[in-house]
């Protein structure tokens, strides 16, 4: 069933169209069912709002919610950037020697397994600047995938190529720049995808813990407030915004990965 120029496939059977249309149809079906059930069973809006209620709230409360989103995004980006820089530097440090890795890696794991909710109050108490406190919390959440993936990548070098570099008298630096870093890129981008989502989650969780404590009201703060006031449509609207942001971040990372690896790596080839 190969597409031929004479007889093109029906629109729905084309892979690109299917990737877009299938989930859209599925989503619309779900929303319609939700709306219908809410109407049929007369579910009160403070329990489960109809999709139309959420949409209306998104429209009316849009400006204030977008402002809150901006605050959360700022924390997310700062944390993500910090995680990438710190994570990559840590990875380079770890692959320099087995001793360094053996002494530090357990602590990287410790960071990963400690729930940020548990240490966020401490960090918030210790840091005077609330933004810095939130960025630190979100960074802690986003850091580990970058470190572990980059370390894995820097070690996953074709041994034949390593021999070739050795035979040609390559210096440590040449081997790093021309061999280890390019070999590590696919793994690094895998780490980026995971971390970008985690940075957002970290930012939201940290805002939750910080609560109304004087921070510049982010989306998590809006969700808390809406919850207290039983303004459930606004709560859902904020949730929708967070989810959309997460998806957008993922798409950006996927695009970046495709751009950088598309010409050679199996994972990004059509």
């Amino acid at each position, binding site marked *: 069933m190969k597409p031929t120029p004479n007889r093109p496939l029906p629109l729905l059977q084309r892979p690109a169209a299917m990737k877009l249309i299938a989930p859209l149809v599925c989503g619309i079906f779900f929303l319609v069912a939700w709306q219908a059930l809410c109407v049929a069973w007369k579910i009160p809006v403070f329990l489960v709002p109809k999709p139309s209620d959420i949409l209306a709230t998104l429209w009316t409360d849009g400006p204030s919610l977008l402002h809150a989103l901006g605050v959360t995004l700022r924390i997310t980006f700062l944390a993500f950037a910090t995680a990438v820089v710190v994570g990559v530097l840590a990875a380079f440090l770890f692959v320099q020697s087995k001793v360094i890795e053996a002494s530090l890696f357990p602590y990287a794991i410790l960071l990963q397994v400690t729930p940020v909710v548990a240490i966020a109050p401490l960090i918030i108490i210790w840091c005077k600047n609330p933004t810095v406190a939130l960025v630190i919390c979100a960074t802690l959440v986003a850091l580990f995938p970058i470190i572990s993936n980059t370390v894995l990548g820097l070690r996953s070098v*074709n041994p*034949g*190529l390593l*021999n*070739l*570099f*050795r*035979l*040609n*008298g*390559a210096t440590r630096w*040449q081997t790093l720049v*021309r*061999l280890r870093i*390019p070999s590590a*890129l696919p793994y690094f981008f895998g780490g980026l995808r995971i971390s970008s989502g985690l940075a957002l989650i970290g930012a939201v969780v940290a805002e939750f813990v910080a609560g109304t404590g004087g921070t510049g009201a982010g989306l998590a703060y809006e969700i808390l407030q809406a919850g207290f006031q039983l303004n459930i449509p606004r709560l859902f609207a904020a949730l929708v915004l967070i989810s959309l942001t997460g998806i957008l971040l993922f798409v950006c990372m996927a695009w970046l990965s495709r751009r950088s*690896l598309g*010409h*050679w*790596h199996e994972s990004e080839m059509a």
Partner: protein
Amino acid sequence: MLMKTRPPEADPSPVESGTPVSGGLVPDADTVLFANKVEKTYDNGTHALDELSLRIQKGDFVSLLGPSGCGKSTLLKMFAGLESPSHGHLRWQGADAPAKSGLRTAMVFQEATLMPWADIETNVRLPLDLAHVSRAEAQQRVARALEQVGLARFAKSYPRELSGGMQMRVSIARALATEPDVLLMDEPFGALDEFTRHKLDADLRALWAQGGPRGALTVVFVTHSIYEAVFLSSRVVMMAARPGRLVCDMAIPEPDRGESFRVSNAFSDYCRDLSLRLHAASGGEGEGAHF
């Protein structure tokens, strides 16, 4: 070149005359690679090589032929400087390290070992970039090497766009770009299909006959195919396993290596002769007697 000729019909003697297999082997002015009573035992106890002596002269095309485990790859890696012997010593044009000898060696591995993220040109230029050869000269040498292996049109392609045989050609071009005196090849065509292999064998033989820009090219070629060894080499050094040792050192003086050589009587005589010697050396045991 090789003066020693030997009719393939003659009785197989255990050791080829002229170059004794052990002891009394002395390097001379034309010796590029020399192994003196070299032994190799790996940490896990594997006895890969046992007191092996070998002299490789400038311009030789030597095949190291033998079954798996005979230490032929180990010997090649020693000549490349990737491994060192447990006992005995090696000499590169009289020097005790390849770097001190002024001898340029290049190695071609069993796999093409290309960088998948770099185009063909960049892959071939790698050794020159690592050695800080000027960009202009490097480009010239890369173009020449790609021309030699017939891949000039593919300079901007990526390795995955090329077939296995073409990738191997790139690997050979990368070695040629360094303008080597000695080309060390570790079963380079082992993973290719028979037809591609025949073509690459013929092309390699032609490249060797042409010589490099620095004079006669010496090739040390590891293979487990008797046919490939006979077709390619001016000298076949056959080895046996457990422990790795020399069985015979046979000159193949035929000058003409066209496809007609493959179907000639002389070719089959050489092959039969080598098979008999290998059989005799393994004590009449069949392949796989140890399993």
